């Protein structure tokens, strides 16, 4: 292997990013792994009245009160069940800790820039504003979610509109 190609590989590796892949129903989504704080089971969630239905409530994460968002409801998935496999991904966005409910976490993938394709303009449920692209991996397609933008967006109602965080 020549110097040049070696360098190119290194450069590509430097630019490649790691994603946590999770499933919502049959679909596969992925978020930047650096945003992920931890993964835990779904339990003991206290409902908050008068909140949108996808906000399941708040839970106690070692003394910190953390809101829990069910992305399956947000994305209008047909079957929303809570069982032993239901997983909460705790993410850190905009100085906040938020838990998102997903059907399952599959693996951690490294994607190089050329594996990330731009997301087409589509979708009413999930605006392409909240996507950082589509990851193509052999015959799999991963929807790369910009979790920062999604969770701080107004439609998620997680952040006070008056606060400028």
């Amino acid at each position: 292997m020549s110097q040049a190609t070696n360098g190119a590989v290194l450069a590509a590796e430097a630019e490649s990013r790691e994603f946590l892949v999770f499933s919502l129903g049959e679909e596969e989504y992925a978020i930047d792994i650096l945003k992920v704080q931890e993964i835990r089971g779904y339990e003991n969630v206290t409902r908050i009245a008068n909140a949108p239905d996808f906000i399941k409530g708040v839970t106690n994460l070692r003394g910190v009160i953390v809101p829990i968002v069910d992305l399956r409801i947000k994305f209008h998935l047909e079957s929303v069940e809570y069982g032993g496999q239901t997983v909460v991904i705790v993410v850190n966005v905009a100085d906040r800790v938020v838990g998102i409910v997903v059907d399952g976490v599959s693996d951690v993938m490294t994607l190089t820039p050329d594996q990330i394709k731009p997301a087409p303009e589509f979708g009413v449920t999930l605006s392409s504003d909240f996507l950082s692209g589509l990851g193509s991996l052999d015959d799999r397609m991963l929807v790369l979610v910009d979790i920062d933008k999604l969770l701080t967006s107004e439609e998620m109602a997680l952040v006070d509109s008056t606060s400028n965080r």
Partner: protein
Amino acid sequence: MDIADFFDTFFEEAEELLADMEQHLLELDIDNPDGEQLNAIFRAAHSIKGGAGTFGFSVLQKTTHIFENLLDHARKGELTLRADLVDTFLETKDIMHEQLDAYRNEEAPDQEAYERICQTLQQIALEEIGQTLEAPAAPPAPLFKTEEPSASSASEHQLVVALLNVSEKDRTLLVEELEQLGEIQTQSGDDKRYEVILNGDSSADDIEAVMCFIIEPEQIEIKVTDRAQTAVPVSAAPTVSTPPAAPVAAEPAAKPQPPVESERKEAAAKPKKAAAESSSIRVSVDKVDQIINLVGELIITQSMLDQTVSDLEDQSVGNSSLQNGMSLLQRNARDLQEAVMSIRMIPMEFVFSRFPRVVRDTAGKLGKEIELVTEGKSTELDKSLVERITDPLTHLVRNSLDHGIEMPDKREALGKPRTGKLTLSARHQGGNILIEVRDDGAGMDRERLLAKARENGLNVSDTMTDEEVYQLIFAPGFSTAEAVTDVSGRGVGMDVVKRNIQGMGGRVEIQSKLGEGTNTRIVLPLTLAILDGMSIKVGGETFILPLSTVLESLQPTKNDMYAMAGDDVVLKVRDEYLPVIAIHEVLDVENAITDPTRSIAVIVQGEGRRYAMLVDELIGQQQVVVKNLEDNYRKVPGISAATILGDGSVALILDITGLHRLSRVKKEAGKIINNQHYSFYKEAEPS
């Protein structure tokens, strides 16, 4: 708290200010100085000057004064900054720091450095601005007497030292002292006045300085006479000379004692100072709060464990060492919590200390004579509360001075002392702190308050209790003042005072007697981080009600409930009709008891509004650690905060006022439809 504490505070503050100043000086862009930064440097210098002036640190004050003048020119753009000027400024800062250290160690600051830096600064002013600054006053006398060179006038003279009201024991010591300073010619007198005639070259100051270790300066009278004069002073004691036998006898042994003692005193003073320096550290509130949070977690974990252990015991024979361990853990955890909470506590002194000034100024403006008495200054209160109580308290004090205490002439006519007395007191009462503002003024006139209330269109009746009548002064826009004065009638009104105090989880009570005075009592929780709560159950959900808002609870009967205007319901409690708010409707709780006669009505009061809250079940009272919801989520209508229960789950703390608002909003939005189960209420009978 004595003056030494203020010294320490000043030293700490000045140190911070100097550090700030240095940082700003270092960051300063010389070619294009930032006005804000120059202002910051100027302000720091100004603050230090003020403090130094207050405590009589004259060298520091004068240095800062010159520096400040120069900085003033700099910030106005009259002085163009150069690198070497900034260097000089930094040097000035260093010298100020040295001076500060010197004062802290009770030493005289370096006179030479002081003169040099003053000169340099003057020079800069002269060269750069072309004007002399206010000349520094003659090098000030060092504040702390160093080894003052004894003004040893060459000529020997005679001193007549008279000791007034000095006991024989002390006198003996003093005479010995004097023997060190010169040759005693004669000594005579009694306890009242004892004269010693001393030959020698010591100055009167020396003698006074030595004697002050034993007696007060007022007890010494020193006259310097010429050697030539007659040995016997005119004021010669009429009594027979009775030189006490004791001094002679004790002389050899006692002789070296006094100096040793004074040396020891000096030596002792230093280590004490050094110890004081390291006895406190400044820690950011965030760090303390983090510890408080962690301890809160520990407490929760502990109660979870406790629960588990007691469940275990139900099933099998209890393990006594496990039990002992658990109770020990519980006690330690509580102690730890208390100790940690105490870090946040600061004495009321910090609030009270500003009032002498407020009272003096206000009294001066009003032409009244007021004596301020403070009690319980050392009572401790959570820091965040201390910060928030100051404004309401200031308002109450002003109000007392303005409306409570009468003019001196009027007081005299009423047979009261001309000087009015205002007492500020603080003390603990149970889990609360009680702060009182007491005056011996006119007191409140029930009839006048009622008349005024009617005038203002408030709903009052003659049967109201005194307490209720007095509470009227907290109604918005209510004032019985004949004229709006400069003192009250501006700034926050009494309604704001009450709201502020309620915002802190406290309440205000008024006791008053016409002609004798008024006592305004503020009852506050000790801390905001922990709340006394009542846990309630609605459906399967647990909520916490702040205990301070709960008045009573009762089981409503069908006969006490009245439907009003379709979907509103009121509950008759004794003679009062209270609006009813069902938690399960406002907060959409499923599987709750919907039949009001089977639920429990909790009468709550928040911000002066009372209503009956329908809940399924009362669980009990408990202390809860208040957790903010907004950190990771957002403000939730009707909910003030959250807490973590013993089983690790989150319970929401209800916001009484917010719930009332929410219920109205929901009703207006038509979300609560006139449910069928109200149909059995009897119609409100027109009265």
